[in-house]
């Protein structure tokens, strides 16, 4: 077992809407990422996976607020640190972020190199510009980006190039953890491929030590990650290795989610495409009991009032359902038989 790069215990954060309502978008989430590993987070849109990404940074601004839990990066807890200390010593250097809409992530009126200067000077005001330029050029070269990009404005770059630039900027300070929130969803297939390839190489080239990869595109998830967490309504509903999560999900929601896509793996082709009917619950006042109960095919009466904990199911594996592993497997087997 490698060194734990990121450890999160019971992290809870909320949004306060303009009507002063609390929305708990991340609800007691715990996770671990080891050195050299990539953790994937899957779920429908609105399940809280993007909010989790924001919350993991440990740097909160309205309308997102921290309410509890702990974030430990490489053995050092950052919860409880002063926001300005987090900004100076953690952001970019320990943990970095690639936003969902990376197309607009760069200030449109600033050259790439000037933005990199801003980033580095924000952490160390004594750095000189020549050094920064050399560092940036070297990083860009290693990552396969033409150094001319540094002198350009974001508008002058194509979509794919812009996204790769954002990635290169994000890792320029060699963070230990990189959080990539749907980094390729807005791109065409070719650019998507290049971006993914670049992300996969980051660890080998030593720019980062571990990664959290968030996407709703499951094939991608399976390709990129080592472990997968499935989120539903702000909670983790299943945690497993990538292989198990995709081919042998336990939680009915994971099962539905994995069933709703076609994985280009032989042996999975026969799985029927089944979208999960219904929509995630409103997190302003989440339902008591299991949050998935409303949409679950195997729902029992007690699901609607029992507060379901995350049950351990072997090493690195857990799921949030009152039904036992065996009952669930039986149900799935039964269904498969009917379908066949």
């Amino acid at each position, binding site marked *: 077992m490698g060194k734990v790069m990121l450890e999160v215990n019971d992290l809870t954060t909320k949004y306060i809407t303009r009507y002063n309502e609390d929305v708990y978008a991340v609800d007691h989430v715990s996770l671990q990422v080891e050195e050299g590993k990539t953790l994937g987070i899957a779920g429908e849109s609105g399940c809280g996976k993007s909010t989790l990404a*924001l919350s993991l940074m440990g740097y909160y*601004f309205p309308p997102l607020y921290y309410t509890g839990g702990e974030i430990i990066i490489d053995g050092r807890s950052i919860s409880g640190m002063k926001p300005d200390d987090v900004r100076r010593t*953690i952001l970019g*250097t320990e943990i970095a972020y690639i936003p969902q809409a990376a197309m*607009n*992530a*760069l200030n449109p009126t600033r*050259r790439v190199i000037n933005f990199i200067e801003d*980033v580095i000077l924000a952490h160390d005001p004594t750095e000189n510009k020549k050094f920064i330029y050399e560092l940036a050029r070297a990083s860009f070269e290693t990552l396969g980006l033409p150094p001319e990009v540094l002198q350009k404005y974001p508008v002058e770059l194509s979509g794919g190039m812009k996204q790769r630039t954002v990635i290169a900027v994000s890792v320029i300070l060699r963070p230990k953890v990189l959080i990539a929130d749907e980094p390729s969803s807005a791109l065409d297939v070719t650019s998507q491929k290049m971006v993914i390839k670049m992300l996969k190489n980051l660890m080998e080239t030593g720019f980062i030590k571990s990664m959290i990869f968030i996407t709703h595109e499951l094939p991608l998830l399976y390709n990129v990650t080592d472990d997968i967490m499935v989120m539903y309504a702000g909670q983790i509903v299943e945690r497993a290795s990538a292989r198990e999560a995709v081919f042998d999900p336990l939680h009915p929601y994971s099962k539905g989610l994995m069933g709703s896509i076609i994985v280009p793996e032989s042996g999975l082709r026969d799985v029927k495409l089944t979208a999960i009917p219904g929509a995630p619950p409103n997190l302003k006042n989440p339902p008591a009991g299991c949050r998935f109960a409303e949409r679950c095919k195997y729902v029992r009466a007690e699901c609607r009032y029992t507060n379901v904990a995350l049950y351990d199911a072997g090493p690195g594996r857990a799921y949030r359902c009152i039904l036992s592993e065996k009952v669930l497997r039986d149900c799935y087997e039964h269904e498969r038989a009917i379908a066949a």
Partner: protein
Amino acid sequence: MKGYRRYFLNKAGWFVITLIAAFLLNFFLPRMMPGDPVAAIVARQAQGMSNSTGVQAIYEQYTKLFGTDKPLFQQFFIYMGNVLRGDFGYSFSQYPRTVAEVLSASLWWTVVLQFPAIIFGWVVGNSLGAIAAYRKGGLDKVAMPISILISNLPAFGMAVILLVVFAATLKWLPASGGYAFDMIPSLSVNFLGSALLHYILPFASIVLLAIGGQAIGMRSMAIYELNADYVRYSRFMGIKDNQISRYVFRNAMLPQITGLALAIGTMIGGALVAEIIFSYPGLGTVLLTAISGRDYPLISAVTLIITIMALIANFAIEILYGFIDPRIKAAQSD
């Protein structure tokens, strides 16, 4: 730089085109109306004037100036030629002064009043708007309703209120004119002091109006920018908040500059009416006396000058904008 040259040439081209259009409109609009005022003026000479040599002089002047016996397009070229030489003919209402004489003084009063006021109001309004967007607290809640109310006041309304409060009631400042009645324009300290005193209220009324409108625009632009993706990303890269506010302010300001370029004509128009309330010796007041004296040549010259002023201001802002917004160069060099 190549991109910028292209942008500049494009804007310069538009400047020339709109200038020509302004000349055409100024010439043809009055002549297309049912009661062609120029023809009516020339025909009606004897009625309005008491000075008989004046009547004769104007009659000859106008037949020559407008060439009313010639076809319309030929008249236009005569008109263009005259205008380019600065020859607008005699003023009807202030004969024997020429229109050029009447305007040469008042033009400067207007320029010196309006442009500093609009620029100052723009700068202050934008700063306030940005601050209001950034600190959503008390300032925003107090300042915004006031700005909204102010921006809904018509230009002359602001002028009247300032005049009533500070000149008529408190008697702190003079109510009308550009300098004390007993003075002759000169560069003496006394005169400049008096001019400055008279300058304050008209200046303030234009500034306040500009502040109101600009602050609201800037506030919503800044709020829009604050929610932009790059703000969050910059924060997560550890960039300081005041650096980010500089990004936001600059990016929100850019559309405000183009906004100013487009609104400058309306602002000048409103400020002209404010001038009238203070009987300020600028173009607005000249325009009013010209209209009440049915002084067609003067009206035509004033409207042309206002248009040219607006066009130049617009052009200047666009050129400046090209320097400030890097996206312009990038877009043009594609």
